[in-house]
């Protein structure tokens, strides 16, 4: 629910209730389906935001019930901090009420208009009042309100206020009846909830659809994300006018302290450097900054070496949490692979930091013949509309996915394959294509970061596919050698009632390699691996084998030295990997000391092995 607001002075009041009544499409309430979607979206966004600010792990339940033929009742209940009873009328009954509208930080809610618009739409379409229940931790009782909106005065009217005992510490429930239509699909309330669960793995979400069917997206992360904080502007990307305005409004008496106190990442040293470059005196009064001085400051910002903008203001989901979120939502498709999610370093767009993260879900029951599914987020809010116009979609389309193992016509456009691409862009100020805020504008610095993130997860998919291909080749060879050729020999000799001929020479002809393959067992948090090295060549062979687990800690030797392994003999070694078990997809093996043509199931040890330690796969930045 909308957060508690203490500083009335920060709130602005724009009388637009009446305007909205006549132009409801502007806020997205243009059809019964869209109205339902908007209401669910606004309510759940508010709930999650409120919980986040108070570091509460959200428990949210959403239900949509049929009232009659055309009308639905949407109820969203959370365990958030609750709302001051005195503010309820304004929060739900006054458009453009809320501090969020003017805050300079990353937040979900976008316009401060949403939930009131939903209340108003419900009032217009059904004539009924919204019902709000709320309880704050400090209060002994909860309050229940019936609220409507005075359209001409843009004010909430409380019709009934009752106190009651609520079996919870704190929380808010809002229930709005409206003309609405429940649908499922890519642009539906249900999809919105589902995708919200992906980027909010710390949320426990229950949903009941109009037919009474229940869905549960359980919490997979027990830590609430730290609340995002406001930040000072980062010097790069600021407009000239913005620098001037900051200088003229500063409390600082001197130029140097203005620079160090008003801008992010400007240390004393950096300020000195800037002042030296511009020739502005450190002791001059910033409130008397001239236009040409401001311009030279702007240029100097670009020349000095600044630390990357601070990420505290940003609140990415984080790689491990993205993986968990993707898993808890898409596991019913039994994907065969989740990429290692990528979190790019923060970038800056117009002085505002942003950060891109991406993940991929691949294989399983996902459709092979269809376009890959693109799931877009901004500041943990799913974007379901205007996919084509969005920088994320365009980034996906500009990449040639064929080298990553996907089908794509001529190497452009949305590729085909059993894949879901998830991209989250978070930032204090994200440029959108339009006021509806459903598509990110194609700004070069952001698009570039998205492309880099996608290439990185794309490489992960390619690695997975290569690995799968290599494994299947080795498994085939093993099957040939260990199962089929012996079976042929046995069957032929039984039919002829003769002794089975020795088959080693045949096997040497078929294989003529050293085969390396593993078997593994998983426990709760570790994997025990047995690796078998079989010499199917016709001479004795020696080699060294280096296991490289995909993750976790290797408990075993760094390498295994095999000396004079005679033909048709095998050598086994075992090790375990700690801190990994689910989705273990096999260890990579590297070797030295033998001609690579004689080895299948391992790769030659890269030259930089010792230098790079256990990490071999460098990330190439295109």
């Amino acid at each position, binding site marked *: 629910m909308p957060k508690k607001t203490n500083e009335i002075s920060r709130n602005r009041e724009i009388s637009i209730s009446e305007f909205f009544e006549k132009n409801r499409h502007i806020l997205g309430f243009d059809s019964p389906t869209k109205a339902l979607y908007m209401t669910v979206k606004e309510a759940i966004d508010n709930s999650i935001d409120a919980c986040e600010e108070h570091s509460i792990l959200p428990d949210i339940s959403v239900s949509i019930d049929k009232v009659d033929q055309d009308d639905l009742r949407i109820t969203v209940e959370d365990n958030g901090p609750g709302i001051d009873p005195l503010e309820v009328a304004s929060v739900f009954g006054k458009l453009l009420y809320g501090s969020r509208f003017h805050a300079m930080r990353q937040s979900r809610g976008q316009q401060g208009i949403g939930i009131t618009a939903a209340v108003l739409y419900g009032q217009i379409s059904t004539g009924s009042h919204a019902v709000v229940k709320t309880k704050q931790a400090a209060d002994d009782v909860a309050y229940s309100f019936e609220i409507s909106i005075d359209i001409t005065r843009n004010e909430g009217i409380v019709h009934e206020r009752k106190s009651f005992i609520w079996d919870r510490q704190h929380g808010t429930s809002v229930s709005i009846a409206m003309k609405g239509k429940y649908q499922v699909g890519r642009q539906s309330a249900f999809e919105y909830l589902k995708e919200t669960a992906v980027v909010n793995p710390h949320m426990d979400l229950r949903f009941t659809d109009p037919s009474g069917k229940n869905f549960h997206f359980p919490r997979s992360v027990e830590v609430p994300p730290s609340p995002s904080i406001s930040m000072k502007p980062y010097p790069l990307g600021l407009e000239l006018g913005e620098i001037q305005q900051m200088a003229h409004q500063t409390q600082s008496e001197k130029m140097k302290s203005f620079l160090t106190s008003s801008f992010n990442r400007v240390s004393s040293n950096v300020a000195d450097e800037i002042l030296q470059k511009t020739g502005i005196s450190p002791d001059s009064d910033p409130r008397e900054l001239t236009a040409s001085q401001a311009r030279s400051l702007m240029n100097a910002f670009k020349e000095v070496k600044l630390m990357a903008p601070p990420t505290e203001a940003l609140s990415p989901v984080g790689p491990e949490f993205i993986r968990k979120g993707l898993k808890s939502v898409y596991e019913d498709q039994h994907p065969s692979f989740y990429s290692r999610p990528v979190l790019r370093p923060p970038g800056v767009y117009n002085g505002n930091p942003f950060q891109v993260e991406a993940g991929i879900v691949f294989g399983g029951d996902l459709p092979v013949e269809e376009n890959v599914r693109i799931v877009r987020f901004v500041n943990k809010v799913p974007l379901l509309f205007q996919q084509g116009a969005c920088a994320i979609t365009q980034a996906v389309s500009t990449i040639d996915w064929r080298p990553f193992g996907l089908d794509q016509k001529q190497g452009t456009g949305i590729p085909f394959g059993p894949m879901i691409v998830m991209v989250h862009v978070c930032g204090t100020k994200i440029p959108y294509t339009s006021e509806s805020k459903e598509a990110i504008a194609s700004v070069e610095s952001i698009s570039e970061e998205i492309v880099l993130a996608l290439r990185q997860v794309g490489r992960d998919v390619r690695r997975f596919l290569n690995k799968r291909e290599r494994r299947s080749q080795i498994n085939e060879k093993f099957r040939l050698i260990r199962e089929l050729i012996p*079976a042929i020999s046995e069957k*032929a000799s039984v039919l*002829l009632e003769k002794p089975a001929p020795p088959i080693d020479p045949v096997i040497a002809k078929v294989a003529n390699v050293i085969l390396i393959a593993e078997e593994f067992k998983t426990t709760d948090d570790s994997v025990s691996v047995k690796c078998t090295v079989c010499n199917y060549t016709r001479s004795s062979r020696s080699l060294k084998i280096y296991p490289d687990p995909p993750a976790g800690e290797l408990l075993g030797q760094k390498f295994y030295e095999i000396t004079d392994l005679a033909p048709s003999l095998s050598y086994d070694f075992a090790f375990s990997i700690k801190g990994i078990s689910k989705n273990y997809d096999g260890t990579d093996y590297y070797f030295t000391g033998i001609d690579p043509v004689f080895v299948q199931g391992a790769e030659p040890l890269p030259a930089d092995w010792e230098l790079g330690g256990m990490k071999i796969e460098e990330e190439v930045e295109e």
Partner: protein
Amino acid sequence: MTDTAEVLKEKLIRRIYGYLSEGEVPFLSMPSRNKENIVLDEKYMVWKYGDKSLTRSAKTVDGAEYILKSLYVAGFIDEMLKGKKTSTLREMYYISEGWGPGKFHSQDESDMQAEDLEVLTALLREDFGLRPEENGASIIGDVTIEERNRKGEFKKINCKDDVGDGGYTIPYSVENNKLRLKETGAKLVLAIETGGMFDRLVENGFDERYNCVLVHLKGQPARSTRRLLKRMNEELKLPVYVFTDGDPWSFRIFASVAYGAIKTAHISDYLAVPTAEFIGITASDILSYDLPTDVLTDKDVQALNAELKDPRFQTEFWKNEIGTMLGMNKKAEQQALAKYGLDYVTDKYLPDKLFSPGDMM
């Protein structure tokens, strides 16, 4: 006949065993069984497999599985021969469930393998005791045969007087040890594609009126049906005429009767009747009899185009027929002749076609 079990050992099992004992990777080679590898056998005037061959080696998983499966099939046949049993191809497919890595994944695969064994051994499926699922088609007309029944006695049957309206059902094996052709008063054999037309001719008494043997092909004819046509043609000296629908699939039915089928080209000289003649429905019939038609489907057009590349259809007659059909983009069923009444086919169409010289292909 040579001992089937011995031939299987010689041509397959000992070969594989021999390779293994010599330290060689086992392999099997045989003619490729496709359209690209059939050639006209000038001696018999039927189409048989050419020189292109396909080798399957145990170097690959597919090749090794194939060799293992052929050994299992050979073993299964050996067992059946010892126990004097036969099985359907479908039963063999299900039995293969217990063959571990030698198990078949579809019945098409196991049917194919049985045919491959025929090619490899120059024996017949019937020799292996393997028979198709469906029972044979039926014949009606003045021909007397002797069929060996389950008691091992040969029983005489006249296919006109000793059968009902359904006719005599052709058994799956029509070799001399099972079926003997004794005598006939008929002058020709008329092979008919569809059951509806077969029944029409029977009801109208066409066989008696024109002294012929009617054979129901039941679509693409089974081996035993084709073999019986061949024997009636060779042993009773009866000319064979084929009467089908007028569409690309019927052209193929005629081709398999007269020229040999691609899948069974290894035994074309044993199954095909090179002197068989096509009566219709021809593409020109559709025009000259103004028959009710259907538009060709995409698949029909594909089939006609494939036939244009099929070596068996490279004659003036067939190039014309296929070209005409593609040109008018229409096909017709044999029963479309009912447009002119139920008796038209027996009173007019067939007599004109069969007995007016100069109107035949």
